[in-house]
C-alpha cells in the first residue's frame, strides 16, 4: 500500500505571531518555521503503518516555496521514502492546494492519503476534505485511531459529542487529530540518511492547475486586547467580586 502525506511549512507553534504595524499582513520576519504539528502526526501515522507492514511506500508532498524543502527533509528523516515539492511563490489557498494534490494523486496513485486536519497558520481546516471531494474519495477527518482492514479503513473520529467510528473504502483521505499518535523525534543517523533520499521538484505551472486566489486579505489586525484584571487575596474576595462587581453569580 502506497501512502501519500501532504505537509505544510508553518510558523513554529511556540511563536506568538503579530500583525505587521501597517496591518498589511502577518509579521513573519525572522520567525522560526517548522512542519505543521498535525502534519507531523500524519507522517508518524504513515511510518507506523509501514512498520506494521501495511504500508510499503510513503511519499511526502508539499506545495510552497523552495525553502519548504526543509520540512520535506524533516518528513524524510521521520521515515518517508521520497518527497515531492510542488514549487510556487504564490500563497496558495486550500482549494488551489487540493487541486495540486489531485494532480499528484493521479500521478502517484496512492491507496491512502493521510494529512493534518488543519494548519496552525490559516486555521482553515479544508484541504483534506477538498481533496477527497475532487477525487470523489471518502474522507475520515479528525482521526484519533486508524486501522486498515483489507480494502477499507476503520477510523475513529473526534467529534463534538465524543467519538465516532466509521468505515471508508480505500483509496481515501484521512486527516489527523492531536491524539492519533505522538510523533517520534528524528534520530541523527536518520537526519543524515534523509539527505540522500529522493526529493523531486515540480514547478506548479507544469501541472496546469489554476492557483489564482479567490480570497483577498484586506488587512490583518490584532485581536481586541484583553486587559489583565486584578489578583484577589482569598476565595472570599473572589466570590464577593463575582457576586457584587462582575455580577456573574448570585
Amino acid at each position: 500500500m502506497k501512502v501519500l502525506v501532504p505537509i505544510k511549512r508553518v510558523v513554529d507553534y511556540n511563536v506568538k505571531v503579530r500583525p505587521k504595524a501597517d496591518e498589511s499582513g502577518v509579521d513573519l520576519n525572522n520567525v522560526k518555521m517548522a512542519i505543521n504539528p498535525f502534519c507531523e502526526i500524519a507522517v508518524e501515522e504513515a511510518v507506523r503503518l509501514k512498520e506494521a507492514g501495511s504500508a510499503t511506500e510513503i511519499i511526502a508532498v508539499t506545495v510552497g516555496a523552495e525553502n519548504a524543502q526543509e520540512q520535506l527533509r524533516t518528513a524524510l528523516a521521520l521515515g518517508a521514502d521520497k518527497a515531492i515539492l510542488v514549487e510556487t511563490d504564490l500563497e496558495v489557498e486550500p482549494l488551489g492546494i487540493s487541486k495540486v494534490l489531485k494532480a499528484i494523486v493521479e500521478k502517484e496513485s496512492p491507496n491512502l492519503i493521510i494529512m493534518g486536519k488543519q494548519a496552525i497558520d490559516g486555521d482553515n481546516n479544508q484541504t483534506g476534505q477538498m481533496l477527497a471531494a475532487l477525487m470523489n474519495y471518502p474522507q475520515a477527518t479528525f482521526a484519533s485511531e486508524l486501522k486498515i482492514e483489507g480494502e477499507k479503513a476503520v477510523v475513529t473520529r473526534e467529534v463534538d459529542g465524543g467519538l465516532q467510528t466509521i468505515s471508508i473504502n480505500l483509496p481515501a483521505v484521512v486527516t489527523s487529530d492531536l491524539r492519533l499518535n505522538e510523533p517520534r523525534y528524528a534520530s541523527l543517523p536518520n537526519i543524515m540518511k534523509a539527505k540522500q533520499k529522493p526529493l523531486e521538484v515540480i514547478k506548479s505551472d507544469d501541472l496546469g492547475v489554476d492557483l489564482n486566489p479567490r480570497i483577498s486579505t484586506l488587512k490583518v489586525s490584532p485581536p481586541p486586547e484583553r486587559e489583565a484584571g486584578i489578583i484577589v487575596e482569598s476565595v472570599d474576595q473572589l466570590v464577593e467580586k463575582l457576586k457584587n462587581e462582575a455580577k456573574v453569580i448570585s
Partner: protein
Amino acid sequence: MTALVIAEHDNNELKVSTQNTVSAASKLDSDIHVLVAGAECNAVAEEAATCEGVTKVLYVDSKEYENFLAENIATLIKNVSDDYSAILAPATTNGKNYMPRVAALLDVAQISDISSVESEDTFQRPIYAGNCIATVQSSDAKKVITVRTTAFDAAPKGSNSAEILKLEEVNDAGISEFIKEELAKSDRPELTAAEVVISGGRGMQNGDNFSLLEGIADKLGAAIGASRAAVDSGFVPNDYQVGQTGKIVAPNLYIAVGISGAIQHLAGMKDSKVIVAINKDEDAPIFQVADYGLVADLFTALPEMESKI
C-alpha cells in the same frame, strides 16, 4: 438572493449553533432558508421553522443522512445549492467535516470560521490561533462559509412559522459507512452553549480530581471543560477540550483551574465575558487575560469556593 443555512441537529432537536448561524446569515441576506437533513427528524424541521428570520425550511428525511456522513450530505447540499448566493454552516465538527467538501464540489474557496460579516463579500476571521484577525474578501459568486458560533447571538425561536418544503433527495455515495458513536452522556449544559464554564488543566493532576470541579459546576449550572494538556494526559475525554483545535467557548463566566494559559488554550476562551484563573504559579500566562486571578493551591481553593457560592 437567498442564503442557505445547514442545520446542526441530532435528529431529535435543533442545536443552538444553527440559530447562531441563522443570525450570521441575516447579516448577508434578508431571505434565509434552512436545510434540515437527517433521518426521522421531522421535529427538527418544525423547530427550525420557528426560528426568527427563517423564510423556508428544506426538509430531507432519509436514512443515509442519519449520521451526517460527509460524502452523502455534501452531495445533497451541492444539489440544492443552485438558487443560493451563500451557504453557511456552524463551525462544529460536522460543519467543518462536510462544508469544505461542498466548497470543492462547487469550485468555491471556503471562508472558514467567520467572526463577523462586514459586507456581502467581506468577512473577519481569526487566524494563527486568534492572535490575528484577518479581514478577507471573497470573489466567488457563491459564498461557502462556516461560522464561529460564539461570535453571533442565537436567533430566537418560537415566534415564526416558516413554510416547510419536503424534498426527496437520495444520495448514498456507498463509499463510507457509520459504525458506532460513543457520546458523552451528561446532565450538564453543552460546553459551547453554557453560561458558565469551569475548566481544568494539567494542575488537576489526574481525572479523579475533576470531581473537585463538579461540585462547583453543579452549584453554578456550569459545563466542565479542559485544556489540551489535561486531555492529552488522559484525565478527561477529547470532547472536553477548549482551544484552537477543540471547542471555542464564550460564556459569561469562565473559570480556569490549574491551566497555565498556552496560546492554544486562550484561542478557545478569551472572548468569555469574565475570566477567573486559579493557579498556584503566579507567573502563569493565564493571569494576563483573567479579570480575577487567585494565586492558590487548587486543592484547598476549590473546596472552599464550593462551600461559599
